[in-house]
């Protein structure tokens, strides 16, 4: 209607003044504007002309609907008519104008009905919306891009606005939370999803401008300001409601600010760091475990170290580390053993502690080969303190590193000087004991023999007494008999001379009787018989005397004696052993009386004589000799028997050593003789040749008790 109205005006053909004024106003407007009465334009201003690319006159030829794109002409017409006829102030509407060049211009068209000089006209102003539209489209595009970016972001991300409403909720977020964007759009109480309670999220707190301190308190230190964007925070927290058994999320929230810098929202990203966290935790656990292990090991090592040093310091053996030929370190004990107070041997040459260079070389030549093989080495030897005092040391060496024997060695040294001394003392004592034992054995043997001899002596004395009685009276009777016989013989002679006075018969009878008893022979034989009997009796007497002398039960003290006599009486005692085997040759010299235990020396002689007799198998000679040289006398018993081998000569003085058949010799004879002669400070010299015989010569000092030391041996007795 209005368009018609406008169209009518020019139709009248006389533009009124009001119209002119209106045109002027129109032209003053910067906004594109035009005036119409429902038909052709009454007026279009320059701004419109510029917008549409028409001249003002061209504009006047057109109707309002011809200004818009064809599909909007009707609504354009309707809008104008509505304004002209019914609603003077309709709401603005958007229209798309078409320019001369055919481009489209979006405008917001606002129509107002104005009355000029009674005529209703429509004044339409255009607000060019092209730019706004462009911006809007751009914004929309941007928003879509943003949405796409957000959506395609694999990181769960959501955005809230200043009112805490959710404005974005990306796919990843949907996946993470299991909530659709549709459900979440505009939602404010997001806390229930995350925490199961209405609790502000980090983004909410940022939007609220919560202070960092409160944030720290809320997140219990698990929060920190982002280094990348200002006002943003990062936190890591566990969300039990997500995933199968809860998830660790790395949450970042950053404020969104408008162009004025005011916070209008916040964006929050949620990264599932469960795996990392678990890995981290695992790593941490592992690390802790490792650390624990390391600390334990360290502790152990510490303890070991401490123990080692304590052990070294307090060890009762000297401990020494040696590298090459130098001492690296040593303990206190070593210092005590080898050094003066306060001295240290570190850096010293090990050779300094050996008694001599030769010692060290000897030691090195046996120790080093073993050590280089990596084997421990044990040794005992004399070492020297620095002050020169010598110690008997037991040492054990180990190489520090078996794979590298050149690296050095540890030595344990123990002072065994006392032990050594004790051992030596023990050895000496043992030897002494053995010697004593040996002597004791000999003494016992001798005792045994002496006892035997003593009982023989007692027996002999008893027997001698018993024998002496018969000898006494037989001897006396023999004398008497001889006397009687002399008388009888005299009587017989007297009778013989008186024979002639008898008768022939009687004489004949007497003759016969004389002949019968062989008187002549009897008279001849009687003195011989008596002499021989007296002889025999004399021998019995002598044997008994010798037996008594030999046993000497009544005289066992040192006394002066004639050794020749002793030898004789001994020979008499053993004569029956000897006489059937050997001829005895005596070759005595005059001897001075010798102070001796005669009975014991007689035993020695007896042993020699019996041995000599035993050495002779069939028949031989035993020579008894004696001699005298300075302060010494000697008695020798030599035989022409079998002689002795070297072995026998070496062992003959050993107790119980015998070459005689079982039961014949005790093996004590010579050992006993040896000890008896020793008691007399004498010696026994033996010469023997197998098959030729032996000679035993005893040298005895004339006065063995005269001095402690036996007098010097004559040269004859020296050597063999």
């Amino acid at each position, binding site marked *: 209607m209005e368009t018609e109205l406008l169209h009518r005006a020019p139709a009248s053909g006389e533009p009124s003044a009001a119209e002119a004024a209106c045109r002027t106003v129109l032209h003053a407007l910067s906004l594109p504007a035009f005036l119409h009465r429902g038909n052709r334009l009454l007026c279009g201003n320059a701004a419109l002309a510029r917008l549409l690319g028409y001249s003002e006159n061209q504009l006047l030829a057109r109707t309002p609907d011809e200004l818009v794109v064809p599909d909007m002409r009707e609504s354009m017409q309707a809008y104008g008519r509505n304004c002209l006829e019914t609603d003077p102030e309709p709401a603005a509407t958007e229209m798309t104008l078409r320019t001369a060049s055919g481009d489209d211009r979006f405008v917001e068209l606002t129509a107002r009905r104005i009355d000029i000089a009674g005529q209703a006209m429509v004044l339409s102003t255009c607000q060019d919306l092209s730019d706004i539209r462009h911006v809007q489209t751009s914004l929309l595009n941007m928003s879509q891009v943003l949405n796409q970016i957000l959506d395609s972001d694999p990181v769960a991300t959501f955005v809230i606005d200043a009112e805490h409403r959710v404005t974005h909720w990306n796919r990843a977020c949907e996946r993470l939370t299991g909530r659709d964007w549709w459900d979440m759009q505009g939602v404010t109480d997001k806390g229930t999803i995350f925490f199961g309670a209405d609790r502000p999220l980090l983004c909410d707190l940022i939007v609220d401008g919560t202070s960092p301190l409160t944030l720290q308190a809320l997140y219990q230190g698990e929060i920190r300001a982002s280094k990348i964007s200002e006002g943003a925070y990062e936190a890591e927290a566990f969300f039990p409601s997500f995933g199968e058994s809860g998830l660790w999320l790395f949450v970042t929230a950053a404020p969104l600010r408008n162009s004025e810098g005011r916070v209008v929202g916040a964006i929050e990203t949620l990264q599932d760091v469960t795996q990392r966290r678990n890995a981290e935790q695992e790593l941490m656990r592992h690390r802790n475990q490792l650390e624990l292990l390391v600390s334990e090991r360290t502790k152990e090592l510490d303890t070991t170290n401490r123990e080692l040093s304590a052990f070294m310091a307090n060890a009762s053996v000297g401990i020494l580390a040696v590298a090459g030929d130098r001492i690296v370190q040593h303990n206190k004990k070593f210092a005590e053993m080898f050094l003066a107070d306060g001295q240290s041997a570190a850096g010293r040459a090990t050779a300094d502690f050996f008694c001599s260079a030769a010692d060290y070389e000897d030691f090195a030549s046996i120790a080093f080969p073993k050590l280089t093989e990596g084997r421990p080495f044990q040794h005992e030897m004399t070492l020297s303190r620095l002050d020169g005092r010598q110690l008997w040391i037991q040492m054990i060496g180990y190489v520090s590193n078996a794979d590298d024997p050149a690296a050095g060695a540890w030595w344990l040294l123990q002072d065994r000087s006392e032990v050594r001394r004790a051992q030596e003392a023990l050895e000496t004592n043992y030897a002494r004991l053995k010697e004593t034992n040996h002597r004791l054995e000999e003494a016992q043997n001798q005792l045994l023999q002496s006892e035997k001899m003593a009982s023989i002596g007692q027996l002999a004395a008893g027997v*001698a*007494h018993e024998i002496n009685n*018969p000898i*006494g*009276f037989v001897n006396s*009777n023999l004398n*008497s008999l001889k006397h009687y016989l002399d008388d009888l013989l005299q009587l017989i002679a007297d009778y013989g001379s008186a024979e002639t006075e008898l008768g022939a018969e009687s004489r004949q009878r007497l003759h016969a009787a004389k002949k019968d008893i062989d008187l002549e022979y009897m008279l001849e034989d009687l003195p011989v018989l008596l002499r021989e009997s007296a002889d025999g009796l004399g021998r019995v007497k002598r044997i008994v005397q010798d037996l008594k002398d030999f046993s000497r039960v*009544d005289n066992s003290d040192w006394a002066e004696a004639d050794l020749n006599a002793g030898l004789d009486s001994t020979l008499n005692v053993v004569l029956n052993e000897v006489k059937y085997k050997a001829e005895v040759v005596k070759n005595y010299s005059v001897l001075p009386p010798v102070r001796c235990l005669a009975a014991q020396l007689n035993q020695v002689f007896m042993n020699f004589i019996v041995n000599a007799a035993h050495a002779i198998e069939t028949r031989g000679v035993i020579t008894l000799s004696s001699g005298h040289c300075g302060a010494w006398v000697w008695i020798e018993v030599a035989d022409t028997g079998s002689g002795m081998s070297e072995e026998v000569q070496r062992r003959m003085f050993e107790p119980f050593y015998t070459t005689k058949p079982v039961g014949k010799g005790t093996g004590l004879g010579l050992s006993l003789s040896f000890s008896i002669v020793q008691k007399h400070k004498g010696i026994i010299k033996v010469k023997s040749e197998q098959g030729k015989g032996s000679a035993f010569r005893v040298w005895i000092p004339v006065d063995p008790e005269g001095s402690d030391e036996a007098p010097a041996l004559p040269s004859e007795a020296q050597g063999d």
Partner: protein
Amino acid sequence: MPRILLVDDESSVLNALLRLLRITPIVVRGVEWRPKIDIFTSPVEALKAASECSYDLAVSDFRMPELDGVAVLRRMRDLQPDCARVILSGYTDLNGLIGAINEARIDRFIAKPWNDFEFVSTLAQVLEIRALRMENEALADQFRCERGEISRVELETKRLEQQEPGITQVQWGPDGSIVIDMDEIAEALRHHGN
């Protein structure tokens, strides 16, 4: 009549000595001395005899079953101090010798087996010394008597006692009989038994 007492547990020894002394005269001071010889194989019997008659010389063996020679000669010394004492033994035991010399105060020790000549000449020596001693004593007594130191009765008593030991100590009963003290005899025998 000089008397000799021989004691030995072996009779053969006694017989032999008897023969010896019969054949060989003991010559004392150039005089052949032919004594009466009493022999005993039992020491106790010998001592019994010794208490009955006086002996000039007693020869005893040392070892005998009942009494040893020392005991016999010791007892002999008690009974007849002037009798010479000799031991003839084959046994030489030091203690025995000490006893023989100190207790029995023997004049000689002759070892068995004896030599006849030595035996006889030893006896001769012993008897000679004894004779000298007794002569000395008799002379001294005579001298003392002459000087009035002892009476003639004492001298005669001593002579009698020498001749018949014990005769001066005989106890006479009031009727002139001899009193024999059995206790004393028993004591003497017991002593011998030792």
